[in-house]
């Protein structure tokens, strides 16, 4: 049977089900295939903080949203065009946020009376009028999966577990995507347990065939490949890209890589990734807590390694004191904060940008530090690399802010080879030099030299007490303290001389400048882009360098009538800008719900400001 095809620019699919339903895997496998087809993609996994939240409840729903297409994919999308709902709770959790005429694929086997009640519906949403505006595809997915696997002799539970692949097969059919890559994945992954591998493959194929058989929707869709720069791509999450960026930086700096870290959601995957790569020399130390994580990194930096520590909000709080030590001793370490919802334990699995103040100012004493942030899953690679470069070439600790949204999100990464990347030149001194003093500085950067133990004649001592501006010996001299406070500040400020100018998009737009930072780049870009296409006077500038700001920042701000700072917090970057460039007036658009922006809510706000006189 042939199916008529609709060719679409882009589509948003959301896989939703119980925590145990394997939605994250289904979503990831779909992403991998669609990425390989050359689509632009952006993903957004969203799951509860319990390991297996109570079955069948809305609180237990785990979701994976993917936006893919040939163009216009700047974010995982505001709302799905296609919702996969493995049970009533998954339906309930997403009902308030569906595109009109959304396709909803449900497993009717899981719509028993009890399930429906557990999800908080009073009636069966499939039979009352709840879904009348949508196209619903009902499939007895659980029973069909079991039937399909009947011959494999699996226990009930194992068979049941394959229903996500049955579903995925149906979705692949919907979007005319091939099964090969997913099949390979299972062959590879279950080499040692081929029955399970086969079961998944069989379920996948059965789902595909079932969709084909019932002609699940009148039309099925095709998405043409995106017009991307030529090159070789792979799909990558932000946390993986971060890990790889550090590995690349270590290679390009010619020093061993050390990570001292303590597990915390959503940062742990960076450690998981790095620890796989001992073959590349990565030294990964799982410390007893976050303080030991950063302190071991400081020790490793003192001993000449490229030292990293990774964490999230509460762990960052614990590292506060030790960051001060790194500032005082002017050792090059990179501190990664994959931000999550706060305060306190907050919303550990949700995204937020509310640790900016903590990064910039959250320490005792005058303790300036370089702060930079990544803006897409894939560019976490570049910003990890850049953070390391700044740390090593300016002898300063650097904070790299990413977000849960970036760390867990995925997009295609145009693969870099080592030869594409610039050399990093750490300020090491590798042999005796009679002129050297521990706190003597180079003139341009005000950085001191990096002298690791082992070199005859260069023995020296550093520490957290204020130090003499030349010898580094302990000094309680008041003037010297004043000098050192200024030097530490100026050293960080001068990083601005070694970074590119800030750019903005929207040449002739004088009316409104949208300012963003961090992981909301794609969404902000998308929203501004839409309005620019409508011919609105709107421009967009996105910051990755937070402290110091690029030198031309004021110049850009001066060009616009209104400046609107959009961020997932109550206005932290806006406040930082007020303190740093007080000559401008900043409007704010904020959201603190543990969720990314929606393009629609941004456009509303932009239009509002554009219409104001």
């Amino acid at each position: 049977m042939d199916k008529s095809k609709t060719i679409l620019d882009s589509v948003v699919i959301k896989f939703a089900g119980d925590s145990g339903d394997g939605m994250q895997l289904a979503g990831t496998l779909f992403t991998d295939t669609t990425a390989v087809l050359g689509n632009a993609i952006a993903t957004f996994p969203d799951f509860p903080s319990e390991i297996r939240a109570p079955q069948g409840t809305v609180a237990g729903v785990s979701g994976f949203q993917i936006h893919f297409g040939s163009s216009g994919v700047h974010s995982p999308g505001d709302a799905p065009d296609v919702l996969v709902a493995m049970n009533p709770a998954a339906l309930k959790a997403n009902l308030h946020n569906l595109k009109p005429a959304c396709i909803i694929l449900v497993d009717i086997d899981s719509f028993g009376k009890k399930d429906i009640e557990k999800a908080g519906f009073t009636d069966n949403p499939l039979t009352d009028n709840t879904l009348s505006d949508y196209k619903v595809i009902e499939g007895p997915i659980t029973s069909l999966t079991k039937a399909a696997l009947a011959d494999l002799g699996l226990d009930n539970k194992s068979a049941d577990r394959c229903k996500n692949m049955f579903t995925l097969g149906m979705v692949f059919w919907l979007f005319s995507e091939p099964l090969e890559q997913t099949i390979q994945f299972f062959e590879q992954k279950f080499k040692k347990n081929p029955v399970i591998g086969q079961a998944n493959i069989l379920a996948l194929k059965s789902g595909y065939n079932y969709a084909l058989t019932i002609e699940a929707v009148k039309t099925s869709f095709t998405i043409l490949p995106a017009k991307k720069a030529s090159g070789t791509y792979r799909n990558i999450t932000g946390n993986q890209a971060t890990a790889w960026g550090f590995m690349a930086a270590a290679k390009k700096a010619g020093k061993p890589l050390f990570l001292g870290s303590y597990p915390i959601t959503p940062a742990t995957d960076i450690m998981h990734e790095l620890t796989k790569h001992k073959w590349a020399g990565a030294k990964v130390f799982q410390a007893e807590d976050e303080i030991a994580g950063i302190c071991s990194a400081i020790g490793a930096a003192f001993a000449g390694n490229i030292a990293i520590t990774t964490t999230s909000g509460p762990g960052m709080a614990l590292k506060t004191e030790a960051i001060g030590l790194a500032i005082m001793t002017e050792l090059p370490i990179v501190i990664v904060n994959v931000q999550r919802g706060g305060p306190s334990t907050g919303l550990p699995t949700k995204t937020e940008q509310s640790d900016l103040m903590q990064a910039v100012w959250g320490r005792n004493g005058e303790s300036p530090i370089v702060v930079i942030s990544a803006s897409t899953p894939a560019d976490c690679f570049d910003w990890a690399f850049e953070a390391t470069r700044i740390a090593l070439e300016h002898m300063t600790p650097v904070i790299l802010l990413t977000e849960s949204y970036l760390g867990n999100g995925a997009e295609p990464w145009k693969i870099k080879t080592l030869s594409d990347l610039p050399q990093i030149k750490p300020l090491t001194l590798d042999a005796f030099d009679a002129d050297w003093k521990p706190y003597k500085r180079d003139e341009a950067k005000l950085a001191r030299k990096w002298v690791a133990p082992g070199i005859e004649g260069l023995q020296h001592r550093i520490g957290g007490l204020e130090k003499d501006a030349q010898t580094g010996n302990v000094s309680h001299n008041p003037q010297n303290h004043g000098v050192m406070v200024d030097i530490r500040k100026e050293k960080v400020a001068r990083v601005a001389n070694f970074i590119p100018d800030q750019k903005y998009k929207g040449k002739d737009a004088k009316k409104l400048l949208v300012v963003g930072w961090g992981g909301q780049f794609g969404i902000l870009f998308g929203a501004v882009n839409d309005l620019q296409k409508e011919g609105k006077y709107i421009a967009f500038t996105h910051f990755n360098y937070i402290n110091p700001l690029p030198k031309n920042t004021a110049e850009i701000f001066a060009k616009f009538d209104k400046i609107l700072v959009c961020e997932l917090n109550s206005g932290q970057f806006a406040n930082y800008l007020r303190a740093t460039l007080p000559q401008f007036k900043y409007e704010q658009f904020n959201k603190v719900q543990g969720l990314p922006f929606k393009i629609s809510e941004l456009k509303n706000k932009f239009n509002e400001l554009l219409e104001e006189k």
Partner: protein
Amino acid sequence: MEAAATQCLFKPKDYASDQEVKWCPGCGDYAIINAVQKAFSELNLKKEKVAIISGIGCSSRFPYYMDTYGFHTIHGRPAAVATGVKLANPELSVWMISGDGDSLAIGGNHFIHAVRRNININLILFNNEIYGLTKGQYSPTSERGKITKSSPFGTVESPFSVGELVLGAQGQFYARVPDTDVKLMTQVIIEAEKHQGLSLVEVLQNCVIFNDKTHAEITNKENKANNQLILEHGKPMLFGENNNKGIRLNGLELEVVTIGENGITESDILVHDATTKSNVLHNMLIQMKLPEFPIAMGVIRNTEASVFDKEFTAQITNQQETSKLKSLDDLFLSGNTFTIKD
């Protein structure tokens, strides 16, 4: 800044830096630094191969006074910093200097983890049973009832026993020495450096200003023969003015006996075995208290076990040798990739 080191052996004083030592006159820390310098000299350690890491406290000013690489870190964290140093460069001889507050109050967690991991670091714990630098508050090793600035009516806490805590955290090397015996300190410090894994040397140190004479009953010239049992591996546990008192095992308890009395001969006396895996007897020796028992000094436990930094490094080497991936380019291009052509 240092002159380039010469090839010849170092004298103890060669390990001193150019910084003026700033402990109070009469502080026990002076004896410890002397012992360390002597031990370094006997070990013929190259200055540039030594990294001394400390926390915060009077004791932790130590690295400033040594012409080696040194790091005066933050309060309670030297074990974590030292761990990073050692993992980053296992070739270094890494020494950690710390106080009872630094390692057992705020730093207790890093302390027990460093011990558990058995990382090859030498940790000298200056136990003056007080917070010196902050001017005299009780510490986790202060004896119950102690009157200090923060306990005007006496403490109501039981102290840690350093040795027991070390053994409880799976420690493989534990030695105890008084600051009054530079010779013994030197020997013990040499043993500590030779031992592979975490070597813990507890020094009973006198703080003349805030806790003067805490250890006096043990260390006083008049008492020391009777109140100290200096353990030597393979030697009988004898002590006393006439070296005729000894330790005997009686069921699951130790007892002090006198050779020549009640038919006791040297063969009744326990012979010290620091290297036995079992920590039962080591623990009993550590637990001996005045006045019933002398205080055990010297290397009490010195056993071989897996060394963390060695295995940490070996795992990396092993992967480097066996992994199919040989370069980052290999990695980046592995798995699912796709190519867009112009």
